[in-house]
C-alpha cells in the first residue's frame, strides 16, 4: 500500500469554484418540423450550481437508484436560444421518446443515432461554444 503523502499546515485560498451541472439536448431544445420532418433545432442550454440543482430519485427496474437532475425544472441560468439547421441527410420524422413508456423501439432506433450526430455537430459550432461559455460565466458570478 502506498504511504499517505504528508500534508502541510499551510493553507492556500481555493481558486477554482466552478461546480456546475449543465444539461442540453432533446428535452431542453425545440425541434422545428415541416410535415413532421426536423428541419432545424432551437437549442437551449440549462445550467445549475451542482449543489443546488433540483434532484430526484428514479428507482430502476433492477432496484437501483439513479439520483438525477430534474431537467424539466427551470435552470439557474438558461442560455439565449440559437438555431441549428439539420443537414438534409440527418433529417427525420422520428421523435424523442421523452422518457415516456413504453418506448417505441423502431422510432428510437431511428431517432437516437441521429440525435447523437446532432449533438456532436451542434457542440462543434461557435454558437454552442459562445452560449456554453456564457452560461458558465454567469454561473461563475453566483
Amino acid at each position: 500500500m502506498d504511504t499517505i503523502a504528508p500534508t502541510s499546515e499551510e493553507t492556500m485560498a481555493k481558486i477554482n469554484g466552478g461546480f456546475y451541472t449543465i444539461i442540453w439536448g432533446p428535452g431542453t431544445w425545440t425541434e422545428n418540423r415541416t410535415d413532421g420532418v426536423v428541419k432545424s433545432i432551437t437549442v437551449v442550454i440549462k445550467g445549475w450550481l451542482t449543489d443546488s440543482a433540483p434532484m430526484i430519485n428514479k428507482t430502476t427496474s433492477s432496484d437501483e437508484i439513479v439520483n438525477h437532475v430534474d431537467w424539466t425544472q427551470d435552470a439557474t441560468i438558461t442560455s439565449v436560444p440559437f438555431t441549428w439547421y439539420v443537414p438534409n441527410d440527418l433529417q427525420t420524422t422520428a421523435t424523442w421518446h421523452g422518457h415516456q413508456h413504453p418506448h417505441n423501439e423502431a422510432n428510437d432506433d431511428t431517432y437516437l443515432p441521429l440525435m447523437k450526430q446532432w449533438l456532436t455537430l451542434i457542440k462543434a459550432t461557435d454558437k454552442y461554444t459562445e452560449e456554453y461559455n456564457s452560461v458558465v460565466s454567469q454561473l461563475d458570478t453566483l
Partner: protein
Amino acid sequence: MGIPTSNISLQAIQAEVGHGTSSNISLQAQSQNAANTGHTSTISGYSSPGGGLTGSPYGIGEFGGYVNVIQTVSNVQNYTGSNAASFVKVLSSYNGYGFVRVEYQLVMKTTQVGSNYVATLYVEETSNGLGSYNSAAMNTGTLYPIQTVTFTQANWPDSYALDHSVNAISSPGGAISTDTTLLGGTGETHTSGSNWDNSTKELLNPTTGTAFKVRHNTTAECWTGTSTYDDTISLKFIKSGYPTLTAATFTIDTEQDMNHTGLCP
C-alpha cells in the same frame, strides 16, 4: 523578507523584486518588473497615484508591504492544445440500467537536475478509460507531463496543492446521474488520500512521487447520450512568507458515451 511600510528605499525594492542589478535602480523599472502584480500597498491611508503597482505613474508607496512571488528557474507547460488530456469511454450497448466509469491519475514527481529541484505534474491513463495526450493515444501506466516547474534549492517551496473543480454536462437530460470522486492514487511512493481538492501537501525533496486519482461515474436507465466532465485543475505552490504561486491552470475533459438498446423496461 518583504518591503516595510515606512522608510522604503529603492535598494529594498530591488532586493525584493530582484530586477536588474543593485545599482542604477529606477522606480519605473522595478514597478514594471514586479512579479506579484496583485499586490496593493498595506501602508495605512496610502492612496495609489493610479495605474496599479506596475503601471504609470509609479508610486514608491505602492510597494508598501510588498512580498515577491516565489522565484522559479522556469515554469513550462508541457502539453499542446486546449486540454492537458482527454479521456473517453463508450458503453456501446446496454439494456435497462447502465454504468460507465473513467479514472485517471495526476502524479506529482520531484527530481533533481543539476543543482536545481524540479516539480513535474503528470497525467496517467488507468485501465478505466482511453486517454489522449497531444492528439495521440496514451498508454496505460505511462506518465505524460503537464507542467514542469524548476526551482533553485533555496527557493524550493514548502508545499503544493491541486485545486479542482468540475462541470458535468449531460446531453440529453434523463435518468442519468453524474458523479465525481477524488481518490488516493496508486503506484507511486505516496498516495494523496481521498478528497484531495486543495489539500496542501508537503513538497518533498527529490526523488518522490505522489498519485492523485479522479473518478467520473455515470449511471443511467434507458438513456442514450453523452455525459462530459470538464475538470479544471490548478497547481499551486506556497513557501513561508510568500504569496501563493499558481504555476498552472489546465483542463482535462472526459466523455462517456452510452447507447441504450432494446425495450425499456
